[in-house]
């Protein structure tokens, strides 16, 4: 079964002035494997956009393009005023990555550093921020992710959910304009998924621009301004959560979304963390 890429023009209607991130006709191959076959995406400042779709459809690769971890062969990528696809040289890419936070599925905390030092390392070493001010910021962030009592623990002593919350705090310590979340709850025990989703939901409510690759359908429905469905390196459809999850006429999307019904991703208010 094949689907046409989403109508490019409708995506372009988002006001150019407020779009913080914009991908236009992005093509990317690894060797001879074509992974992205013309991706269009626009994310407004303060919005949360969820990318859903089957495994291997190129979701992670889209995120990697946005913070220049990989370079597409063609297409335009704009973040803020920066043409990401035209960046040349390491220093320009680094300047971009300081403004774009990314959180990975496997948390990837630095195992030799305490929780506090994991958070403090990048701002002090990369941004040249002062140690006392950064520690203060780190403690505020730890409070936000509800881990104040763990600042002296090492990553190995924490549960997956706790480590992932530290990873979120670590990304936020760089005061990014935008945070990319790549299946951040996929590696977690079901009991700890909720605590991470709570933190992300708080962040989005505070207006942090976020792009989330996720399999938590209920969560995506609850927090997203826009949901994008990708398959085979193309955006099959995009729209409000209501359109994608409930009124989509596309049988492939219905099937995909239906497969997750009654699944995880629910967070009940008052759930203990």
């Amino acid at each position, binding site marked *: 079964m094949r689907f046409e890429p989403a109508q490019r023009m409708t995506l372009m209607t988002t006001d150019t002035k407020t779009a913080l991130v914009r991908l236009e006709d992005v093509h990317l191959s690894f060797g001879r494997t074509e992974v992205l076959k013309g991706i269009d995406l626009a994310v407004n400042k303060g919005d949360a956009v969820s990318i859903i779709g089957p495994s291997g459809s190129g979701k992670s690769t889209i995120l990697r393009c946005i913070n220049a971890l990989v370079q597409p062969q063609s297409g335009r990528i704009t973040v803020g005023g920066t043409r990401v696809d035209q960046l040349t040289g390491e220093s320009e890419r680094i300047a971009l990555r300081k403004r774009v*936070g990314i959180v*990975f599925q496997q948390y*990837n905390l*630095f*195992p030799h550093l305490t929780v506090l030092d994991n958070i403090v*390392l990048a701002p002090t*070493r*990369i*941004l040249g921020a002062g140690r006392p001010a950064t520690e203060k910021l780190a403690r505020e962030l730890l409070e936000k992710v509800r881990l104040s009592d763990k600042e002296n623990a090492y990553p190995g002593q924490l549960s997956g959910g706790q480590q992932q919350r530290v990873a979120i705090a670590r990304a936020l310590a760089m005061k990014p304009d935008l945070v990319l979340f790549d299946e951040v709850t996929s590696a977690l025990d079901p009991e700890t998924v909720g605590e991470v989703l709570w933190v992300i939901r708080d962040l989005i409510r505070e207006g942090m621009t976020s792009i989330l690759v996720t399999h938590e359908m209920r969560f995506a429905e609850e927090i997203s301004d826009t949901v994008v469905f990708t398959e085979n390196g193309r955006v099959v459809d995009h729209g409000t959560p209501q359109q994608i999850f409930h009124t989509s006429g596309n049988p492939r999307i219905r099937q995909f979304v239906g497969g997750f019904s009654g699944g995880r991703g629910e967070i009940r208010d008052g759930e203990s963390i």
Partner: protein
Amino acid sequence: MMGAVLAKRGRSSHILRNGGFVALPLISLIWSLADPTLGRELLEWVPYLASGFMMNILIALSAMTLGTLVGVLFGILALAPFKLVRYPVAVYVQIFRNAPHLVLIFATTYIFPFEIMIFGTYLPFPDWVKAVIGLAIPASAYVAEITRGAILSIPTTQWEAAKGLGFSRNEALRWIILPQCLRRSLPPWMNVLASITMGTALASLVGVHELLHAATDASTAVRRLDFTVIAYLVVMTAFFTLCYPISHLTRRLEGRFNAV
């Protein structure tokens, strides 16, 4: 039951291993006490032997310091993104990792001049310094391999996390990758230390006044068979006393790291 047996075996092997640690000095002591003339002779030579042994320690520490500095640098360069840097380093490491230490000590002794000119003044280039270089070269090759292996053993996700935060390659190496390598490379580094320390005895063959050389001097002067035997026993004891704690500590560290 099983546990008790295992514990007992563990303890007896422990006694056996540490027994070796006291046996050698004990034999030398009892023997020299048994024959007072021998004991007196040995006592007279102890300061001379000790001064030789200080030279072994000096050579070992200098060679390891130099070898570690160069080795860590080369280990990093062996993974540089430029072939022009990577290949020469790889050749250096392969050649000197597989060269006998004695050959290198001979080579450095006869290649380097006995004095060097720096800013118009001639400075002596003593043989012990040449031995240091001769041992620092293989040490640097081993340390380069250890460093390279340790860097490669760090998961690529660590590099990715660092990149995602805005670290450059060098910054990631300095603040995230190398600190994690330190722990992993300590046990193999100590193996090199022990091997280089034992290798310092080779310097006697190019005339450096170190312990083995001193023992040979002593036995030539005293000309007693039992003294010769005990003098070399003392040499063995000295090296054993120096190297055994190193290898013991290495084993314990390896055990600890493997357990984690």
